[in-house]
């Protein structure tokens, strides 16, 4: 459920790696900041307290689907209760690069029960706007894989034993994650953005939509003169 009583507004971006969502939310942040709005940015998997545990588990490949999911939920809960929620209550526009849907998508692919996941994150309110940057799978894969980057074990879904080849594993894993996103788009009412368009055009569309849905002047920082 979205929280319509809270004075702030919550905007999340979701999509596959390579969909350009981080670029878009960065541009969004710059724009809102430039307008003088109270704006706060939070990134998936970035809580300082939880980070040490996550890094250790990932590096040593100690995580099962359940503990992988729980450790991300721990990170999210820490950021949600200490930052996101207070910011919303203080009347900020909060921008989240990935939100609970990232966990719904990835962890479901890993075999976690979809119902359990939705309950696990039941304490979090749904964003007022969720932008899903959708792209054909091959395009997203191409953007990530063209430089033959160093893929990380869990990022490539190697724990699922889809393939011994890390690039092939990444392809299959991303394909399954995309299916989850596509099916969630309706379930949670995502605003779908065609991430194949030019960056600048996408950003213009996004800004126009946000201006329509959010009364931006209400979020301007009050300055004493």
């Amino acid at each position, binding site marked *: 459920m979205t929280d319509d009583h809270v004075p702030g507004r919550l905007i999340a971006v979701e999509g596959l790696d390579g969909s350009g969502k981080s670029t878009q939310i960065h541009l969004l942040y710059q724009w809102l900041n430039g307008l003088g709005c109270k704006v706060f940015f939070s990134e998936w998997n970035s809580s300082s307290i939880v980070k040490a545990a996550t890094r250790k588990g990932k590096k040593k490949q*100690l995580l099962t*689907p359940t*503990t992988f999911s729980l*450790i991300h939920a721990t990170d999210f809960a820490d950021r949600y209760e*200490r930052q996101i929620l207070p910011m919303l209550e203080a009347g900020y526009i909060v921008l989240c690069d990935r939100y609970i849907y990232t966990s719904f998508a990835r962890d479901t692919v890993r*075999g976690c029960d979809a119902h*359990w996941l939705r309950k696990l994150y039941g304490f979090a309110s749904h964003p007022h706007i969720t932008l899903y940057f959708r792209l054909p799978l091959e395009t997203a894969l191409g953007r990530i894989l063209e430089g033959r980057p160093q893929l990380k074990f869990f990022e490539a879904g190697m724990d699922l034993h889809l393939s011994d080849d890390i690039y092939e594993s990444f392809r299959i894993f991303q394909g399954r994650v995309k299916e989850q996103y596509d099916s969630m788009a309706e379930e949670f009412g995502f605003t779908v953005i065609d991430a194949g368009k030019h960056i600048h055009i996408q950003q213009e569309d996004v800004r126009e939509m946000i201006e329509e849905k959010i009364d931006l002047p209400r979020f301007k920082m009050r300055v004493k003169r």
Partner: protein
Amino acid sequence: MSEKKRYENLPPNIDLGKLSGLLIVIEGPDSSGRSTQIRLLSNWLEQRGYAVVQTGLLRSPIVGPALEAAKQGNVLSPRTMSLFYATDFYDQLENTIVPALRAGYIVLADRYIYTLQARDLVRGADPGWVESLYSMAIEPDAVFFLMASSRTLVERTLTANQLLDYWESGMDIGMSRNWFESFIRYQRRLRVEFKKLQEKYGFEIVDANRSVNAIQNGLRAHVETVLHESRSV
């Protein structure tokens, strides 16, 4: 060999059909004598030829150290704490408890999902949320709750440590600035939650106000029954 059950959802990658060991849980607050009883029980079982593995809270290498550190600083919200503990729990469930059960060991668990739930509930967690969080746990073959009066607990704690533990006194909840008062009230509230959990999950309540030997003899009699039943299935 009994087939293990889990409470609700399926954790991925666990085949419950092949777990031939026994899971025995000892619950109870600090100073209820849990670790002494587990040690005695473990020796007794091994002397009788049963292989034993012990587990407890906060022993997972993933989150154990991070959570210990965070507890020192008291900077985590109750929910973050819950989730950290849940991560620790499932890590041990999947990496210690299940492999040991598969190999036919008797697993003696020094506390289980009930303590974790009771602590969260006392701190105002939503009962449905907590229940779901731990719904993938394996149902133990026996759960013993060592129940002692707050008086007994406080006296034993002070005799052993000369001071009260911050968390075991529930000081983070802010019920009282007086540690003694807070300890008594916190333990009382935990007991209320435990009683509710007992109705839901059904476990054996053991009077822990008695002597070490008296408690141990009671436990052995119960465990004997569990061993017998598991063999006859």
